[in-house]
C-alpha cells in the first residue's frame, strides 16, 4: 500500500557478496512487495481469500500500467513500478466485488491520486487507502472490503503477525504498529463500556486479515506518514481515536476512513510546521547576516 517511488539498488556495481546480502537483506526495498505477495499467496492458497485471480491480476495490471503511463507523462522517464504493484495487490486483496470494473477503477484512482493530489511535491494520501475509500464511498452498492479471517486457525494469524512485526521492526516502523494496536485495544475496551457489547466483540476486528494489511502496509507507508518518530506515534494514536468515533457511528470501514481523514491532516500540519521552521531559520539567518549580504 505504499505509494513511495521505489528505487532499485544498483546491484551491478557491487561485489557478489554485497549483492547476495543486499538482495536478501530485510532493508532492501523489495521486502514490502515480497511480503504482501506472500500474504496473498498464503491467504489464497490456504483459504481462498481472493475474489478471483483474474480480479487481483486486473488490479495489479491496471495499477502498474497507470504508474508507467503517468510516470512517463509527468517525469519523462519509466518509473519503477514496485509501489504500484503493492497498491494493485492491496486493492486486489482488500476489495470485494462480484464485478470486474471496481478493481480496475480503484487501482487507477489509487495511482492517479499520487500524481494529482500533491502538496509541496509530495502526495498526501496513501494511494490504496485513497482508492479504496473513494470506491467504497462512491460505489457502496458494488463493492465491500475483505471481511473474512484466516481460516479457522489461529496459527496463520500468528505467523502473519510475527513475520510482519519482524519486518516492520527491521524497517524501523514497528513503533507505529505498536501504538496503533495498543490504542485500538484500549479504545475497544472503552467502546465496549459505552455501547454495552462484549469486549471481545470490539476487539474482534483486529484479529482479521484486513487489519494486518492495514497495519503493516497502510499506516506505516513511509511516503504518507509524518517524519518524526513522536509524530508517527501521535498519528497512529489519532487514527485509532478517529476510528473509535466512526465505530461508535457503526461505520464498517472505520479504519480505512480514519486513515483517510487523519493521514493528510497530519501531513498538512507537518508541512506547515516545517515551513514555519524554515521561515524562522531564514529570519534568524537574515538577522545575523552582515549588512549588504542577501541570501
Amino acid at each position, binding site marked *: 500500500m505504499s505509494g513511495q517511488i521505489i528505487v532499485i539498488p544498483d546491484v551491478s556495481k557491487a561485489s557478489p557478496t554485497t549483492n547476495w546480502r543486499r538482495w536478501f537483506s530485510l532493508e532492501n526495498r523489495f521486502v514490502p512487495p515480497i511480503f504482501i505477495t506472500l500474504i496473498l499467496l498464503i491467504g489464497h492458497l490456504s483459504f*481462498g481469500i481472493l475474489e478471483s485471480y483474474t480480479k487481483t491480476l486486473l488490479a495489479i495490471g491496471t495499477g502498474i500500467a497507470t504508474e508507467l503511463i503517468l510516470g512517463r507523462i509527468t517525469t519523462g522517464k519509466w518509473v519503477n513500478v514496485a509501489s504500484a504493484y503493492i497498491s494493485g495487490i492491496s486493492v486486489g486483496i482488500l476489495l470485494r466485488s*462480484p464485478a470486474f470494473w471496481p478493481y480496475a477503477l480503484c487501482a487507477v*484512482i489509487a495511482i*492517479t491520486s499520487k500524481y494529482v493530489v500533491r502538496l509541496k511535491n509530495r502526495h498526501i494520501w496513501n494511494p490504496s487507502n485513497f482508492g479504496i475509500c473513494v470506491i467504497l464511498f462512491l460505489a*457502496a452498492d*458494488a463493492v465491500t472490503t475483505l471481511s473474512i479471517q484466516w481460516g479457522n486457525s*489461529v496459527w496463520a494469524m500468528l505467523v502473519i503477525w510475527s513475520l510482519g512485526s519482524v519486518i516492520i521492526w527491521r524497517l524501523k516502523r514497528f513503533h507505529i504498529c505498536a501504538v496503533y494496536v495498543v490504542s485500538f485495544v484500549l479504545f475497544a475496551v472503552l467502546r465496549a463500556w459505552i455501547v454495552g457489547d462484549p469486549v471481545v466483540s470490539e476487539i474482534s476486528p483486529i484479529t482479521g486479515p484486513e487489519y494486518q494489511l492495514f497495519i503493516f502496509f497502510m499506516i506505516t507507508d513511509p511516503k504518507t506518514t509524518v517524519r518524526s518518530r513522536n509524530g508517527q506515534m501521535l498519528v497512529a494514536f489519532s487514527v485509532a481515536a478517529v476510528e473509535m468515533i466512526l465505530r461508535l457511528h457503526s461505520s*464498517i470501514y472505520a479504519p480505512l476512513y480514519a486513515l483517510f481523514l487523519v493521514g493528510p491532516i497530519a501531513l498538512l500540519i507537518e508541512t506547515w510546521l516545517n515551513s514555519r521552521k524554515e521561515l524562522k531559520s531564514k529570519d534568524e539567518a537574515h538577522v545575523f547576516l552582515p549588512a549588504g549580504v542577501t541570501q
Partner: protein
Amino acid sequence: MKRSDVTRIALGVFFVGLLATPLVIKRVTVRRAKASAVVLDAGDALSRYGFYFTEVSHAAGIDFIHHAPVLDARLNPIMPEVASMGASVSVVDFDHDGWPDLYVTDSATGSKNKLYRNMHDGTFKDVAEQMGIADVNQDGTGVSMGSVWGDYDNDGYEDLYLIKWGRPELFHNDHGKGFTRVSEQAALPPWINANTAVWFDYDGDGLLDLFVGGYYAEDIDLWHLKTTRIMPESFEYAKNGGRKYLFHNLGNGRFEEVSKKVGIDSRRWALASEAVDLRGTGHPDLVVANDYGVSELYLNDGKQFRESGADAGVGFAPKSGMNVSAGDIFNQGKYAVYISNISEDGVLIQGNNLWVPKDGQVGKQVKYENLARDLGVELGGWSFGAQFGDLNNDGTLDLYLTNGYVSADRSRSYWYDFAKVAGGNSSIIGDADHWPAIDGRSHSGYQQKRVWINDGAGKFVDVAHGVGVTDTCDGRSVAMADLFNRGVLDVIVANQRGPLLLYKNTVTPKNHWIEFALEGTRSNRSAIGAQIIVRWNGQEQVQQVAGGSGFASENDRRVHFGLGSEPHIEGVTIKWPSGKIQTLSAPTLDKINDVTEPQ
C-alpha cells in the same frame, strides 16, 4: 501555457472523470432498477411478460403464520439470528388424487404443522391433525425445519421425512388415510439439527435413500445448552457444523446409515441440497450448499461419492450457501445449479452463484463457471430459497428467489455489529456470548423478492413488481406446482415469522405446455431421479423428478414444461433411474401426461 501546466490540467480532468465514473454507473443501475420496480396491472403484465401473479392464500383458505423457535435463554440477545429458519413448504399429492397438496412447517415448541389438502375448487383444507402429522413440535423433541416426501416403500403413497432441529421423524403414509410414525423402525438417530434433506436412489436399487445435512452439531440441544460455544468457528471456513447422513434404504422399512462408508464425510454447515445427475451418468450426484463455507459437490459412481467441489469450480470461494436448485436454463440438455448467498449494499457482496457447465465436456469430470453476473441473477439480497420453472410457458426456465433475513426495526441495522464479529478469529465468532445483542434491529430485512424471467438469449430480467410479487416478508422456502391443474406453475412461499403466501399464476393462453406425472416400476415408484428430455422446435430441455430442492422444499412431483406459442414436439425421452430409456411417441400438448415406467 507551459507543457507541465497542460499536463497538470489534463491529469486533473482525468482524475475528476475517474471519480465520476462510479456515480455514472450507479445512476444507470438505479434507472434500470426503477424500470423493473414498476407495478403493472394484470393486463399490462400479461402482454409484457406473459404472466402475472395474484396472492390468493386467504381466498384459498390458507391463513398460516409461521412461528420461530424460542431456544435456550442464553441465546436471547441474538435469538432472531439463531432462530431464523424453520418456515418451509413442500408440495405433495399425499392422497394420490391427482391434485397437489401442501405441507407447511411451524417451528415454535407446541406449534402444529399443516397439511393443506387440495379441495379441487381453488381452496385448501388443513387435515394435518386428522392425518397425524400436525403435532410434531412437542417439547423435548425439537421443532420442524422442513420436509421432503418420497415413497420409500414403493406402495404408491408418498411418505414424509420431517427435517428438524431435534428428533428426526419418518412418517409412513397409510394409503392417504393417515400417517404412522416409523422413525425408530427406520433406525433414525435420536437427534439431528438439520435444515436440508433429499430423497434419491443413489445406488439405483429401486429404493429411495435419504440424505440429511446437519447444520448445528447433533450433540447440541438448542433448548438446553451446555455451552454457548455453538456458533460457527469461522464465517467462511467453518467445519464445526452438523455431520451428514446417508440413510441407505434396506427395503424392509429399515435404513442403514452409510455416509462415511460411501465417501460423504463433512461437518460443514449444510443448509440446502439437491440430487441431480449432472454428468448424464445415470447416477445422481449430490450438491450441498453450506453456510459459512464452500459448497460441496459429491460425484456419484453408483456406489461411492467423491467430493469434487474444488475441482469442478463450485467449491473454492467460500460464501453463505442457502439454496440449491438445478435447471436447464439454455435448453441444451444440461443442468445449471443456482446457489444463493448474501448480498447487502456497502457491507457484504458475496453474490449468488449460477454454476453453468463449461462447454465441450464429456465423461465423468465436470467443470463449472459462475455466470450469475453475466446472466443477471447475482444480486438478490440476503437470498434464501429459489426455484427454476417456466412461469410464462415461453419455453425457457425462469427463476423465483425469495430473500430477507430479519425484518424488525426498519431504522436500525444489525449489520455493523454482525460484521465486526464475523470478521474475527474463531475463538471469538464461535461463542454466542461474544455476539452483540441484536436488540430489535433489522438485519437485511424488508427485502424485495426477485422474479427473473429468462429471455432465452442469455439474460434474466427481474420483473417481480411488474407481475405482482411485492411482499417483503422474510422469505425462506419456495416451491412451484401446478396447484389447480391448469398447466401453469403457481408459486408458494414460506416466510419466517410470516404468512404462507400462495401466488396464483395467470399465463397468456397463447403459450402451450406439457406436463408429465411419472410412476416408477423397476425404479422407485416416486420416479425420483427420472430425467425427462423434451425436444421441440429444434431445441431440447431436460428436467428431473426431484426429491427435494431449493431451501427446505420440494416442488410438484409432476414435471412442467412451457413450450411457447407454436410448439412442434419432436420427441420426448424419459431416462428412468433404473436405466430404462423410454421414448414417448405421441405426448399430448396442454395436458398432464401420465407415464408408467415400462417393465
